[in-house]
Each structure stands twice: as structure tokens, then as C-alpha cells.
């Protein structure tokens, strides 16, 4: 049985604010939740009677569904509000929307928003836990948790001596930023690789190596995280075309042959087959893409549980 130890965060906004010990608390709790996945009765009573609101100001399928399943496994009720269905289209401010949600007696708020910093902004306004499900290019902390959880199942809790390469559109990627913090806190070395316009040198201030030489980045990496080219987000000026991107940086069989045997290939999804990754590679033994999705549920369960208990302590016996 795990201990909630020193978890004190009401909100889960950014991996940058989380210590390595706190990551450990999350992972251990997620591990214990994972053992329940195989049960025929999957539901735990931990958050029974609690209401979780999924406020998604930006479209998302897998993150939203993952949070909904996580809430359901913990016996919480969840309600989904999309930008188009909310009063924000009628000119209501985010502050007022959030306060209304609180007034409806919600216990947890999960938010996806295109504006960086908006989860932090909300967390200062309302007393209930705010969980960041992605804020612009800033952070997607639960994605980094599930990515690192997946690696941790193979590598153990210490990532020292491991090298993780993140390939693709780093500039617009909240997944990359959250993983940069998480991986380094766990001891891994991180290399970013991709076109110079999407992987600016400024990233090196975060402690990572910045490279535009794909081969050099791939030969000694232990895990390779691919990112989707977010062509809907970029202005057309960042690179010439998807075709050019694929020809320069797409992961194909030839480039995959540069990888050491046993290198783990990850992708946060959604995958653009044939753009950043060759279709066959996405389905290969190296790939843990679907495992990531499964681990997403338990990592989000851990976050929901810990943040809820930071506000309103739940006795340990109720958990599992």
C-alpha cells in the first residue's frame, strides 16, 4: 500500500512545480491503481459523491475520455463542458464560468485551454482543485506522467544514464515541455531534435540538448518520443511542407535502423501515419503507444485522487 506522503498540491498545473519525491508518490499510487485494472469490478469508491467537471476549451478526445474514465473508476461523476457549449461563446469570462462551475458544487475541475497559463490563472481564482489537461504550448503534465510511468515500468524509478530524444514540433508542444521537466527530474538526459524553426536554441536554457542532426540524436537514444506536427497550429512559415518534414525528419525504417535494439518508441497521439512516423513502425514491437493510453487512465486517477484529498482528506482505507 502506498502512502500519500507529503502531497500538498490542491492543483496539478505543471511538472515544473512538482518535486521528484512528489512524482514518486504519483507513480506509486498509479502502480497500485494499475493492479485494479484487471479486476472484473474496476470501480474504486475513493471519490464517490464527487463531481468532476471537464472544461474543454479546445478539442480533445483521448485526454478527455481518459479523464472521464479515470473519474468513473474512482466513482466520481463527471460532466463535460466544451467551449462551444459554454457561456464563453456568449461573452462570459473564464473567471465567471469557473465560479459558476464551483457554485454548481463541482469538486474538481479539469481544464484544457489554448491559452498558456490559464490553468494557473483558474487555480488562483477558485478553491477546488484545478487539473491542467493542457494549456496552450505550456504544459500537459498528466501526459508527461503517463509517458514517464510507461518508461519507469521498463527502467525502474531512476532514469540516470538514460537518454530520451524528443523529435518533431517542439515549439508548439506542451507535451514536450512537460516531458522535459519530468524526464530530467527523474535523471534522464533529454535531446530535442527537429527543424531549427520548430526546435529553437532557446530550449537549451531548460537544460536539454538541442539538435538538428537526426542521426546523431538517434544512435544512442534509449527512448524516442515522436510528436505530431501540429499543422493546424502553425502559421505556414515554420517549415516548407509536411512532405519536406517527412523527408527530413519522419521516422522511417532506414532511420529506425539507426536506433539501438530495444529503443522504446513513444507517441502522445494522435498519430499522423506517414508524416512523423512510418505506419509500420507505429505498430512495431518498439512502440508502446497503446500502453501509454492505458497508463494515462491510472496516472490521471492518481492525480485526481491526490488533488481531491489535498482539499478534503480521504482516509487511506477507502482508496483500494
Amino acid at each position, binding site marked *: 500500500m502506498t502512502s500519500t506522503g507529503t502531497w500538498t498540491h490542491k492543483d496539478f498545473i505543471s511538472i515544473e512545480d512538482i518535486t521528484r519525491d512528489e512524482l514518486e508518490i504519483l507513480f506509486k499510487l498509479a502502480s497500485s491503481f494499475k493492479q485494479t485494472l484487471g479486476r472484473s469490478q474496476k470501480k474504486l469508491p475513493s471519490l464517490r459523491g464527487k463531481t468532476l467537471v471537464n472544461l474543454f476549451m479546445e478539442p480533445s478526445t483521448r485526454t478527455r475520455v481518459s479523464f472521464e474514465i479515470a473519474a468513473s473508476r474512482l466513482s466520481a461523476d463527471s460532466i463535460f463542458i466544451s467551449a462551444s457549449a459554454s457561456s464563453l461563446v456568449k461573452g462570459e*469570462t*473564464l*473567471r465567471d464560468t469557473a465560479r459558476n462551475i464551483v457554485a454548481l458544487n463541482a469538486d474538481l475541475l479539469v481544464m484544457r*485551454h*489554448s*491559452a*498558456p*497559463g*490559464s490553468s*494557473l*490563472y483558474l487555480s488562483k481564482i477558485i478553491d477546488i482543485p484545478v487539473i491542467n489537461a493542457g*494549456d*496552450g*504550448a*505550456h*504544459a500537459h503534465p498528466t501526459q508527461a506522467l503517463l509517458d514517464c510511468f510507461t518508461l519507469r515500468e521498463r527502467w525502474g524509478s531512476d532514469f540516470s544514464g538514460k537518454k530520451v530524444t524528443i523529435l518533431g514540433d517542439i*515549439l508548439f508542444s*506542451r507535451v514536450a*515541455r512537460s516531458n522535459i521537466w519530468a524526464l530530467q527530474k527523474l535523471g534522464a538526459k533529454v535531446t530535442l531534435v527537429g527543424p531549427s524553426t520548430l526546435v*529553437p536554441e*532557446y*530550449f537549451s*536554457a*531548460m537544460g536539454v540538448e538541442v539538435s538538428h542532426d537526426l542521426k546523431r540524436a538517434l544512435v544512442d537514444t534509449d527512448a524516442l518520443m515522436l510528436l505530431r506536427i501540429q499543422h493546424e497550429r502553425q*502559421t505556414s512559415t515554420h517549415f516548407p511542407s509536411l512532405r519536406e518534414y517527412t523527408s527530413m525528419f519522419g521516422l522511417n525504417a532506414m532511420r529506425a535502423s539507426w536506433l539501438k535494439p530495444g529503443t522504446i518508441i513513444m507517441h502522445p497521439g494522435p498519430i499522423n501515419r506517414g508524416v512523423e512516423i512510418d505506419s509500420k513502425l507505429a505498430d512495431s514491437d518498439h512502440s508502446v503507444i497503446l500502453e501509454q493510453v492505458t497508463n494515462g487512465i491510472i496516472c490521471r486517477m492518481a492525480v485526481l485522487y491526490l488533488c481531491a484529498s489535498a482539499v478534503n482528506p480521504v482516509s487511506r482505507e477507502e482508496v483500494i
Partner: protein
Amino acid sequence: MRERRESRFQGGGNLVAMSKVLWISGGRVIDPANNRDESGDVFAVDGRVVSSLSEEQKSAARRIDAGGLVVCPGFVDIHVHLREPGQTHKENIASGTRAAAAGGFTTVVCMPNTEPPADNAGTIQFIKDAIARDAVVNVYPTGCITVGRQGERLAPTGSLKRAGVVAITDDGDCVQNNEIMRRAVEYAKMFDICVMDHCQDAALTEGSVMNEGANSIRFGLGGWPNSAEDIIVSRNVILSSYSGAHIHLQHITSAYAVDIIRRAKQRGIRITAEASPHHISLTDDLLKTYDVNYKMNPPLRTEEDRQALISGLLDGTLDCIATDHAPHTDYEKDREFDYAPFGIIGLETALAVCLQTLVVAGKCDLPFLVSLLTNKPAKVLKLDAGTLSPGAMADITIFDPEREWTANPDDYQSRSVNSPWNGQQLRGKVAQTIVAGEIVWSGESASKMA
């Protein structure tokens, strides 16, 4: 204001008994235009500075004891947004000039990005009427460079000048089309009127909300490269060089731009430039909290840029300090960072911030700072302000450079409270502000006292 003030004292000088006499005694008098920095007295009769008073005048004088205080020309701010007409929920001429008075500013130059934009003589007249009715300090309007600030067709510069503007600018936006800008400065030169430009290449700043650099990368916010400013500064230097027109570069933030301006001035090009209190005192590290009161256009830059701005002020590359006082209501500003409007108020905190950044930090002495706030900005636009020379309008600021106070939004005279200094302990406060010999601020607003 100018008109009203002249008429108020009309004929007043004929009889000593009817004269209004002001005697400010015992202060440290700093008048950079006259190289004066001494302990002494300042006198005014009927709204104008005089060098001495007769015994009879002395006995009739209203006396202000300025012991321990600095007495200097009223501050001049050539870049403020008073939001009238059209955005008076943010600020109006009454509240904006009260904020100016509270900050020691006796002359302000207001920007034309009102609703409607001040791109025609009628709107200028509307503004002048409001000034005559409501202003407690001198206000000079500016007009637009282009119709509707759209950057497409020239606004009627000649008519605007005749209507009373002291400069033209599309501030808030930058004229993107080089042909339009070229014609604007050539045309303005004929009227000997300054073209002020907000230097921002719009194509380079699409989606930009903060300085581009390690911090924008870390915070995931849209980066605003220095080059967006540098390129337009270069463009303006080139256009001024070919035309001989005077172009004033507003709120410079980039170290590279400072260097371009320095070299242009060495070649004798008619370029002037300003820096704001926030850009010389704050850096983009502060954006970590996503506090919208650190969101401004142009954005806060790096420490290297900040130091370059200070060096630019010290060696005269940058001519003066201007606040870019930009009021927005709390409900407009209180939003997701991406959606909040750019800009902060600055009139009421400028003195304390500049004292801390320049004088307390040992960058320059007090008279030099006073000159950056008085005769130097006045000179940029050839305004009749910024000096205590005998015969000058008696626009005088008395301040205590040591007085500590807390920037409390409830105490602001401005209608808006969008300031990064809210709640902070500041040092240096205006004790009294005098416009044409009349006290308009003495710790509380003259209009409130009335």
C-alpha cells in the same frame, strides 16, 4: 488647458494686491534646463515663474515650505493614453490628468488611438473641448498618421496641425507600408511636425504576447522577437535620413535598436526616442506568473536589453522617459493571458520607479533623472514646458525622494488599476503639483479638495 489658463489670469498682473503670488521656499531646486541644483526658493506671480519677489509680493504670497523636498519643473510625459473619446470606461481626461497630477506630471501628450481615432480636426476639437473643461494639467493632443489608424491613407496632417496637434502617430499600431510611411514623414516635414512611431513589424509579431526568448519558450507563450522592433527602427532611421524629417521612436525596448539609434544620432539623423519606466525596471522573467499586468506592447525584454536602455538614456541615445500610461479596466485585463489587452498605467508610479531604477541604483544623479522627465521630453516635441526659467509657466513639481508609500490601487487617481506595482512598497512620492501657479495635487486631488 493652455487657453483656459491664460484667460484665468488675464489682467491679473495689473495690481499687486490682485496678483496670485507663490513662494516655494527652502527646497532643493533642480532645474536641469538652467543647470540649477541648489537649495533655494522658487517664485511665481500670476502663473509664471519670476526670479524674485518684492517685499510687498512676499507679504501677499502663498508660501509653501519645501524643506527637505525637491522642487523642479513639472514633469512632462509625451506618451499617455487618456482614452477620451470612446473608451471613457478605462480613463477620461479628468481622471487621466488627475493621475498625471498625482504623479507630478504637469504636461502630457495624449495618443490618438481613441474611438473614433483622432484622425481629423473635428475629433481634435472634441478632445480640446474636453481638455478645456476637465483637465487639471496641460494636455496636448496628437493626431493619427493614417486615416482610422489603418496604415493605408494619410490622415490630413496639415488640418490636424492647425487643429492643435503637437505630433502625429498611429501609436498602438505601426505603419507597415514603407511607401505610406515615407510619404507621411515627407509630408509632415513640410509642417515641421514630428512623426512618432510605434516600432513593430506586424508580420513578425502575429500571436506574440511576450518577449521571444528562453522565457517565452519555457512559459509556452507566443514570442515577440526584438527584430520586430529593430527592423522598423532601422526603417525609420533610413526614412528620416533621406527625408530630413523628424521621427520619434516610441517606447524602445531592444538593445539592438538602441545601438541603431546611437549610430543614427552620431550621423546627425533627426531621430529621437523614449524609454518607459517599466522597460527600464522590469524584465520578462516576471511573466512566470502569467500576471496580465506584465503584458504590454512592446513586451518586457531581457536584463541585457534593460541595461542597454539605461545606457541609452545615460548617453543621450534615448532622449527621455515616457510612461505609455495605458489604462484598461479590471474586467478587460482580468482574462487568460493570451486574451488580455496590452498595457499598464504608469503616471502615478513613474517617479518612484525611475528613482529606484536610475538614482538609487547609482546609474545617474537626481538632476539627470529630473531632466529625463522635464526639459528633455519637452524638447522632443518643442513644448513650452519643462523649465523654471523666469517667464516660464509656473508648472512645478515638489517631491520627496525618500518618502515610502504603498502603491494601493484604491488610491489611484486613474480610473484603471492595471499596474504591476500594485501593493508594492515604493520610495519617492510627489508632495505637490502646481500648474500655472495653482496647486492641483497636494496628496489628494485638487478636484476632490474643491
